[in-house]
């Protein structure tokens, strides 16, 4: 997810444990995908049916359609801090 998260970075995540928590657009979220496992992606939209959509617009990355809709219960939480070898990034 370069440049926000380069390979081998560590992320500190605020866990999704509140019923009234609604992730904001452009938040970087960690979620469980039934096919691809645990993913980190930027949220592009949440529709009225409770589906969360993620898209990368990146060459060779998964498309919005490939990822498909993600329900809130499968979202672990929001990335707050990204620690790479060279930088520390805040997403609060």
């Amino acid at each position, binding site marked *: *997810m*370069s*440049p926000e*998260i380069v390979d081998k970075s*560590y*992320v500190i995540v605020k866990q999704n444990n509140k019923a009234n928590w609604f992730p904001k657009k452009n938040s970087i979220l*960690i979620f469980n995908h039934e096919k*691809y*496992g*645990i*993913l*980190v*992606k930027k949220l592009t939209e949440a529709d009225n049916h409770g589906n969360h959509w993620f898209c*990368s*617009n*990146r*060459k*060779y*990355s*998964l*498309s919005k359609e490939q990822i498909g809709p993600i329900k809130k219960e499968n979202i672990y939480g929001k990335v707050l801090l990204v*620690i*790479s*070898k060279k930088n*520390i990034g805040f997403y609060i």
Partner: protein
Amino acid sequence: MLYNLIDKLNYSYKFEEAKAHCDIPCKIYDPIIAQIAVLTMIRTIDLINELEEKDSLTTTDKAQFSRLVSQKEEHGIKVKEEVRVIWGDYFKEPQISAFPEIHDLTHKIMLGASKSKQNVDKKASLELLDNVNRFAEIFWKTKNVNTFKASSPYPPSLELVYPDLKG
């Protein structure tokens, strides 16, 4: 320092790993890689044909022949991969509506690249170049970038479509 500390903790505690499934920064698409790959295929065909004109092949010639065939194959795969990614990831409804020929053209490129991989066929590879050039022309038009044709300043010195980025 913090990274090293967490890295050491990870060594003991094995944190869960999340994948991003992406490799390079956003929106970098350029058909020039496919165009250069076709030129490379044509160049290898020319060099293979030069070898064929010899009465007998030395060990070095045979090694060169093997290398050329391998390079032709590799660059054929590259043509297909690059065009497929631009077609699949970059072209969306507005671009497809503006250039409905893109699906047929992409399919022709897939078939043409396979044909050029399977054979030592200059005519097929030149047709492939025409199609990839057309693909490049359409790509730049979708970005409102004018294009021009110019001969590549290296063998096989064939025309490529280039974007006029100064315009």
